[in-house]
């Protein structure tokens, strides 16, 4: 499947910095409807910063962020969330001191009842139904990731962004989760997956962006990402 739909997330000429250290230089990324994009690169390439900017947790010093054609540069993260941008940050995207049910309730808003969210979440991950009154912090790592995924998906997002979902999880759990991600994309949701480990995610991605040192080094079909591209980005060799 190649990129076919209209652009959902467009990052145009983005530059960003932490205090005096600039971490992104003129980055352009476009995610289209129904597309799974893998954002790859070594530690420190600027992947997570791209995600922070795309979800409005951080402001770019230059450039603009467009969601479904609207310029939303400088909007609050909560606004983007309400518009259907769902971000699951690095680590476990859950509230450890809230119960599973309360975690799901956090996604509820006008026009989206708690009962609907629960129904959808429990249908996708039945194990969560058994644990609904348990504190989320007491779940296993894989279950926590399921919970955050379930909560994100219950909101009918147009764009789902996942940061290092595989971190600290057993390979079999990771494979399970990515199967779910593929199913989600098939429903028409755009997905941006950030991973340090390229092979896990290239198998399910349509397109890929490879970054290093704050620059986009490659942008194109996932199948076109070859050893040479990766090793030059990760190891700095030509």
């Amino acid at each position, binding site marked *: 499947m190649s990129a076919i739909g209209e652009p959902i997330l467009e990052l145009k000429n983005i530059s960003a910095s932490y205090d005096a250290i600039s971490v992104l230089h003129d980055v352009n990324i476009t995610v289209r409807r129904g597309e799974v994009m893998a954002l790859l690169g070594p530690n420190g390439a600027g992947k997570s910063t791209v995600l922070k900017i795309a979800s409005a947790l951080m402001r770019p010093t230059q450039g603009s962020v467009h969601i479904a054609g609207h310029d939303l540069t400088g909007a609050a993260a909560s606004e983007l*969330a309400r518009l259907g941008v769902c971000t699951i940050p690095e680590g476990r995207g859950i509230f450890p001191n*809230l119960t599973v049910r309360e975690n799901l*309730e956090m996604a509820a808003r006008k026009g989206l009842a708690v009962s609907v969210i629960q129904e959808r979440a429990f249908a996708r991950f039945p194990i969560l139904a058994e644990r609904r009154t348990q504190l989320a912090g007491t779940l296993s790592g894989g279950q926590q990731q399921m919970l955050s995924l379930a909560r994100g998906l219950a909101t009918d997002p147009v764009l789902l962004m996942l940061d290092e979902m595989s971190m600290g999880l057993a390979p079999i759990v990771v494979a399970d989760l990515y199967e779910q991600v593929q199913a989600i994309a098939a429903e028409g949701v755009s997905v941006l997956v950030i991973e340090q480990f390229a092979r896990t995610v290239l198998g399910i991605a349509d397109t890929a962006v490879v970054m290093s040192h704050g620059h986009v080094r490659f942008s194109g079909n996932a199948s076109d990402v070859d050893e040479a591209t990766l090793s030059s980005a990760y190891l700095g060799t030509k």
Partner: protein
Amino acid sequence: MQQLVAYTVIGLTTGAIYALASSGLVVTYVTSGVFNIAHGAIGMIAAFSYWQVRFEWGWSAPIALIAILGVLCPTLGLVIDRVALRGLAQATEVTRLTATVALMAAFIGIATWIWPPENRQPFRGFFDGNNVSVLGVNVGWNKIIALIAAVVVAGGLRILLYKTRLGIQMRAVVDDRSLAELNGARPARIASASWALGASLAGLAGILLAAEVQLNVVPLTLLVINAYAAAIFGRLKSLPLTFLGAMALGLTEAYLLWGQGQSWFPETIGGFSTSGLRQATPTIFLFLLLMLLPQAKLRAGAARVRERSAIPQWNTAILGAAVLVIGSIAVTGMMTRSNTIYLIQALIMALAVVSLVPLTGYAGLVSLAPLTFAGIGAVLMSKMPGDGNVVSLIAVVVVVALIGAVVALPALRLEGIYLALATGAFALLVSILVFNQGKIFSNGVAEVPPLRIPGVDLSQPRPKAIFLSVAFAVVGLLLVALRRSSLGRQFVAMKDSPLAGATLGMNLVRTKALAFAMSAAIASLAGALDAGKVAPDNYTFDRSLPILLLAIVSGVGSIGGAFFGGMLLGSNTVLASIVPSVSKITQVMPGLIGLSMGRNPNGTASQIATGFRPVTSHPQSLLTALSGIGALWLLTSVDIISHWGFFAALVIWGLGIVPNLPALAVTSGRSRVFCLLIAAVGMGIAAFFDDIFDAVPTGGRLLAIIVLFVVVGNAIRRVHTPVAPTSKSSPDLMGLTGFTPEELSQSDRAIKVVP
């Protein structure tokens, strides 16, 4: 039996008030992550305001309640959240705690300013004079209402936090602020809502409590210690446990009250009077609970260290010490006797502030009890044989250091707010149980003998002032040596990352105990060297708060900062002697300065220092600045300008013009002339302030001065080209940020990372 019922009812109603106060505390902590030391102060302000509208202005009770609990308190909560704490969301727990300490100090200042403690109508409770009979005991309506209110609030809060979307969002924001935002929650609004709610609960408790204990600023503020105790019982999260704790506390107090009236109750234990025992119950309760808390987990690289002070250099330290000593010899020669006494007070304060440098500045531990150790030092000095012998002084310092280490031992397992509260509880316990004993302060006074040094009469102000500056200089030099030593580096490492320190083989318990001992020893000097008649009131908990505040605000990592802080504290009295009407402002000043941290977590001093750094490194500007101050002093002393004019001109010169001097020196042509013109006009208005603002009352005058200096400063800044302050950033290694590059490379060499 009848009595048992009566005291149980008293206990339950008192417990109900504590429950109200503590539930508000828990709500703000659970929903905003800030432990609000000022919670009681908000209740105190609410009680005073209620008294004002209800009894002074004669509003009816329901309208007064709506006005205070429905309007004033929520507004106060909102303002606190927006103004004082908004900028601190990312700051460390200690910084946020200090901001609420600042709030408390500011509120105490404001209340004593607005409601001076004279000719007051009594504060009457709800339906005063009418009683209800409960199980044959007459109970006042105020108590019944407290009980009902506690039950209603308990149920309401439970539903709010666990059953409503707002409540779940409140808890979610504390768990993970940015994640909550990614889920569409608006953390800013949620925090505001919880502060409004918490403030209203504090207000309700304050009003109910005032009816029982009457209006009195400090006791009303400190009665939240009860709330702290109950809240800690609920481990700062469980509301049911908090309520249980509050009730248990109320009952214990009531039964002790009952017991004290009985013949079998011992009046003294081991020669010490038990009269303070009931008053001390909540504090003992708090202290014990804190001791029972599980060991805090070591945290890895806290890294968000607020103050990053430079390693003191020997040449600057020696220069500073020499300037201080020579300066004090010169200055005291010209000063009147009474002004010298003010200087002595300021120097004593500076010693108390500098005692926090090793503890808080280097080791990152907070103490709310610096003056308690000073008090112990004073008491021991007065009891020591030898009448001011140097050997006795050394003995006192050693003993207080040991006491400091012993007090620290149980507290060593605690961190952040828990440690701060434990030291606060210690301060209160010493005040209530030890300092009020007739044996300790006979008739409330102790006589501290002046130190006997051959050839010097330290009972005279001038030698005493000079001696104190020498003492400060010596302590300062010792602290410089400490900071540059291996132990000093261990202190800083412990602050930056206890985990990293422990894995490198540091003994954290020993290091913490040493930090406490050193701090206590220095603080004891502030008591033992303050010869003369001293009263326990000098060493109370609420007096320790401004010490901590000014220490943190003026830069607790540096000795110069501590000196500056002490002088600021001392200047309260000095300023008041020059311009009497300013004294009310200076009461509120420490609090207000502390609050400015909310805008700039790096501390006011660092901000000012950044502004003045170009000046100090530019001799010509420095000279101009100092001669300007000298000229103003001269003009005032020959009565050309008035005292108000002096004050105004000093503010505008020092804060508006001096920071711009280096830039002015390099600005040329028309813009330079223009700047000088603005400065001249500003100084002119300031110098003849009295004539221009003749009919304006104090508040208006102060406002005018602030507006004037902001206008002058900004006008000049607009015209010239600014000189950018140079900033240095140090490399970051495993979260150890308090080290200079030299120190890091030194340690790299030591562990053979680099040859």
